[in-house]
């Protein structure tokens, strides 16, 4: 990344800049109590991430251990307010699952889980559009995409990666379907 190349806003496919690191988001006050992440939380995040980026003929989010990455990133890079929103969201995954199907998020079948996540995605987009404030699902989706495509699995097996290109070609032929460069 060359800081001066582009006036580029990392939207991470969610309509807002990546939260964490140096983001300057104004959050309305939320639960600041940091509960940390349990093994089950990471499982929940893995299943959520896998629903967003499933394994196909190429690896998916679980192959890239996106759940564990999210827990590390949120613990270290988020502000307490951001962390609070994220963890509230984790609790909400179960609450929403129970309300709809009378079972917790991890016990949903694939179709139920997909329906819920599609619904959350719709809600999150609507909220970002209306208020500019990220929904907890915005954070989860961002970190799923970020965690996946910057992982070794995502970058080298789903995208293309060349450690030492050795030359530059500014006009290489491209055929639709070929993967993008990871970096």
């Amino acid at each position, binding site marked *: 990344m060359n800081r001066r*190349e*582009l006036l580029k806003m990392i939207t991470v496919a969610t309509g807002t800049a990546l939260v964490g690191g140096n983001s300057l988001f104004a959050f309305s006050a939320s639960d600041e109590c940091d509960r940390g992440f349990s093994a089950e939380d990471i499982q929940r995040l893995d299943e959520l991430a896998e629903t967003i980026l499933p394994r196909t003929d190429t690896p998916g989010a679980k192959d890239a251990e996106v759940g564990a990455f999210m827990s590390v990133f949120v613990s270290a890079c988020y502000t307490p307010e951001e962390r609070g929103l994220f963890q509230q969201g984790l609790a909400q995954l179960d609450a929403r699952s129970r309300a709809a199907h009378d079972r917790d998020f991890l016990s949903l079948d694939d179709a139920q889980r997909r329906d819920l996540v599609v619904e959350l995605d719709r809600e999150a987009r609507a909220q970002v559009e209306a208020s500019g404030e990220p929904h907890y699902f915005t954070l989860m989706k961002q970190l799923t995409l970020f965690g996946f495509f910057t992982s070794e699995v995502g970058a080298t097996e789903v995208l293309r990666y060349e450690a030492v290109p050795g030359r530059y070609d500014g006009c290489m032929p491209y055929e639709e379907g070929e993967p*993008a460069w990871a970096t």
Partner: protein
Amino acid sequence: MANNHYDAIVVGSGISGGWAAKELTEKGLKVLLLERGRNIEHVKDYHNADKEAWDYPHRDHATQEMQEKFPVLKRDYALNESTLGLWADEQAHPYVEEKRFDWFRGYHVGGRSLMWGRQSYRLSPTDFEANQREGIAVDWPIRYEDLAPWYDYVERFAGIAGTREGLDILPDGQFLPPIELNCVEKDVARRIERAFDGQRRLIHSRVANITQPKPEQNRVDCQYRNKCWLGCPYGAYFSTQSATLPAAMKTGNLTLRPFSIVSQVLYDKDRKRARGVEVIDAENHQTYEYTADVVFLNASAFNSTWILMNSATDVWEGGLGSSSGELGHNVMDHHFRCGASGDVEGYLDKYYFGRRPAGFYIPRFRNVGDERRDYVRGFGYQGAASRLGWDREIAELNIGAELKQALSQPGGWTIGMTGFGEMLPYHENRIALDHGVRDKWGLPVLAISVELKQNERDMRTDMVQDAVDLLEAAGVRNVKGEEEDYAPGMGIHEMGTARMGRDPATSVLNGYNQVWDAPNVFVTDGACMTSSSCVNPSLTYMALTARAVDHAVEELKRGDLS
């Protein structure tokens, strides 16, 4: 102390200090190169040079803990896991922001030559004449012709990739083959040239990355990894470590002393000469004296001036060079983060291979020739075109296999650019010693008060609008002009504070970078700049340094400096 005398002392090992050490040692002088920070050995100490995002626990993002430790650095891109340790520790090295000033410092051997942006342009004849013509500040004591042969000299050694364009506003140099524009940039270049009748041009950026090997320097040509700021194991970009330090070492005349904080130039008031420097060892806090016939201050614009302010205070209360009333004044940076971006249609059957450490450059076109805007001077743009990646928004897809499939492929082309504008030298934009605040070694720190004024603000309006016009004229779609938050210092091009001039009453340095009040003290880093131009300044520091060393050695031979 066994032998504390050298022919020459160089303070600071960044871009200009490295050059001073190389030139002085190659001319046969025994040189002591002092560096306030730790050593970083070429290749061996580039610990992150082969890492990728997945090798960092937070994928190269700043943690909350890092943000707390680096409250200044976190204001921009520079705070991340891969370059952590290359930026000065803000707790050990505080400064006072009377007005917000983002001071990004590199306190180690090589200084910011390791992390620099490598864009390398010559100042133009116009740049050297503008102050006099417009009655601003003071006249440069030199003209383009004085520096041109030295630009030639440093370009040949450093290795600058670029193209000869025959432009008065951006003189050509001694270039290696350019780093190619991609096909979209080439097309946009053609369209801009047509739309503006050749008066505005999009050209290859000129960068200190070698496109042909330099075996005599043990440097391999660029491998297109675009990881320069982590240190390059190929030595493909110019840095102290890759280029000037090994050359100086090879002479057998160089002594490098890291962890050496120079607290003052020792001034002999009878001879009106410096006799050496006082050093505080950063590790053991002991004080040492080193003597020399000539002293080069290359500690970076603000720190070279800090040393002067802390020197000879028994003669001049404001320090060595303060008799002019200008020491510490006329701070400049390049103001930037104004530009535009948009989408380019088509070219979906084209992509690129390799990661360039470069892009395109649009040389200054405002206030050139007879044009008179409501501000003076001008700006240039740096930018690039590329295809969108996985972080793009795809409105019609939400989650699942289709989303993954779509994001795994490149998106459409975008192009963006940001202007870098000239900032005028204002006397009231200044740094000063604050004796009430001390660093880890008990030394007074700098208080900084710098702001943009009307000329820069007016220019910024053009910097956004002209970027929009250029892209729209080239047929780019959805063009969005943007002015982002800029604070002085963010350009990391601190200049001024010990300017060159023709008169000791109004300038700190003469036409060969010698302190008027102590001609065996030379300042050849950004401090010496009389005006800032709009082009990246490092190449000019290199040329000024080589020229000043040549002069110093001539004067030493004649006995003029003793």
